[in-house]
């Protein structure tokens, strides 16, 4: 098993932390993991992306030309990464703010109304967890349980009371992707 994932959007949308939680989930499931961010000023408002690789064997390159799965949070990222999803791969995107929807037919395209869902949940900060939930449903490379354990590992203890809310968001995303 090897899953090569890119998550891309605006800085501030939780792109890097979503990747981090996914990577920690991989760690919980005893997988090999690599998390390679775009770093620097891009984190503040520009586009941000992170490559996460989960594998049951040694990971060579942390830098990739194509991906099994892309999670796309804005138009620029869709323009950049749609062509780089491997044939037969998966593209998850939030239609919110997308003017030109994906056109490829050789991949599985899954729109997830994550922004809408945050309105329902009345909490904008659940955004990236909803999308992560969608990813888990579409590509169950790690378990929901591993993600929650990963959250416990990455969140400082003072934020542990937020874990149930995040779990709810994850489940919501899973439902949206099905």
């Amino acid at each position, binding site marked *: 098993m090897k899953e090569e994932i890119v998550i891309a959007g605006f800085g501030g949308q939780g792109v890097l932390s979503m990747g*981090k939680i996914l990577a920690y989930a991989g760690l919980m499931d005893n997988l090999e993991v690599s998390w390679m961010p775009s770093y620097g000023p891009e984190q503040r408002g520009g586009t941000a992306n992170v490559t996460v690789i989960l594998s049951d064997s040694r990971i060579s390159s942390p*830098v990739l030309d194509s991906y099994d799965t892309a999670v796309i949070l804005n138009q620029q990222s869709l323009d950049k990464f749609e062509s780089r999803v491997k044939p037969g791969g998966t593209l998850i995107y939030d239609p919110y703010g997308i003017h030109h929807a994906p056109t490829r037919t050789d991949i599985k395209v899954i729109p997830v109304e994550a922004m809408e869902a945050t309105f329902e949940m009345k909490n904008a900060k659940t955004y990236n967890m909803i999308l992560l939930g969608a990813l888990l449903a579409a590509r169950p490379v790690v378990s929901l349980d591993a993600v929650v354990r990963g959250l416990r590992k990455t969140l400082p203890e003072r934020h542990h009371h937020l874990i149930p809310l995040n779990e709810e968001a994850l489940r919501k995303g899973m439902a949206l992707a099905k």
Partner: protein
Amino acid sequence: MEEVKLMKGNEAIAHAAIRYGCDGYFGYPITPQSEVLETLAELMPWETTGMVVLQAESEVAAINMVYGGAATGKAVMTSSSSPGISLKQEGISYLAASELPALILNCMRGGPGLGTIQPSQSDYFQATKGGGHGDYHLIVLAPATVQEMADFVALGFDLAFKYRTPSMILADGIVGQMMEKVVLPPQRPRRTEEEVRRQCPWAACGKGSRKHRNVVTSLELDSAKMEVNNLRFQETYRRIEENEVRFEEYYTDDCEYLMVAFGSMARICLKAIEEAREKGVRIGLIRPITLWPFPTKRIAELAAKTKGVLVVELNAGQMIEDVRLAISAPSPSVHHFGRMGGIVPNPGEIIEAFYSHYPEAKI
């Protein structure tokens, strides 16, 4: 059981330094390596091992703090990124000339000048050919994984103390910024004052019970004596070249072509090679782990049985000079592929570059 952790390469450096029993870290913020100082500040080792952690007023001050600390026999280190490493060259030259052990991390970014904060390997010349003024070398270790970032702290310090010469971990922004699994070494106690005095009888740490004074200096105005000093440094470098060459090979048993790459580029090459091998193109890879001393002999052996060599670097062609020096005639053709300014090529680009030089290899 050892605990597997997930962290950035820069964070691993900080954890490994504490666990090595490092006595002091002196740094100055610069992207993409600031996590080293930030992590140390968060871990507060002065409360546990007694390690000193100090944010200096400049890179120049930081390396000179390293010089002052190393001169007293302590295990001290600094970290920076390319422009900051240029500023540190004064102190590094003094460390080498005074035969002091110390550890320096360069988490390279694209230059020249202020350049970019994105990954690069364009400080290869600076690191392996000395860097500052005078005839000297650093032991240069090039990590490709977060695990190696952690492991090379101990290796770098051990070699530095063994040969009384500074070592450098020459990483790039990718290895510094990426997160991977890492197993940290067990916590070692810092050396006691007695142990420091025993290990470093040359240290200027107060005479104590010593009868004579110790003087740590790089100054010798008598040219005849200064040449003797230089000959001694060179003798040390020859011993290092004999004993400390380290490298890793992949698919070299049957390779018809060879790639040479270090650090994170070696990993990107490896993926390119594995994809090409699926199609039957037999490429091998050698990854120098020590960039100085350079695996000259092994590269010559491997090159002798291949049809062509591609050196892949995040620069305009630096290590290729050492590869060319290693390979004697009759030699296969040696080409370079690199990207600059913080652009990191992906595996596809590398294999395309390979085929452009060796179209006959394409199946």
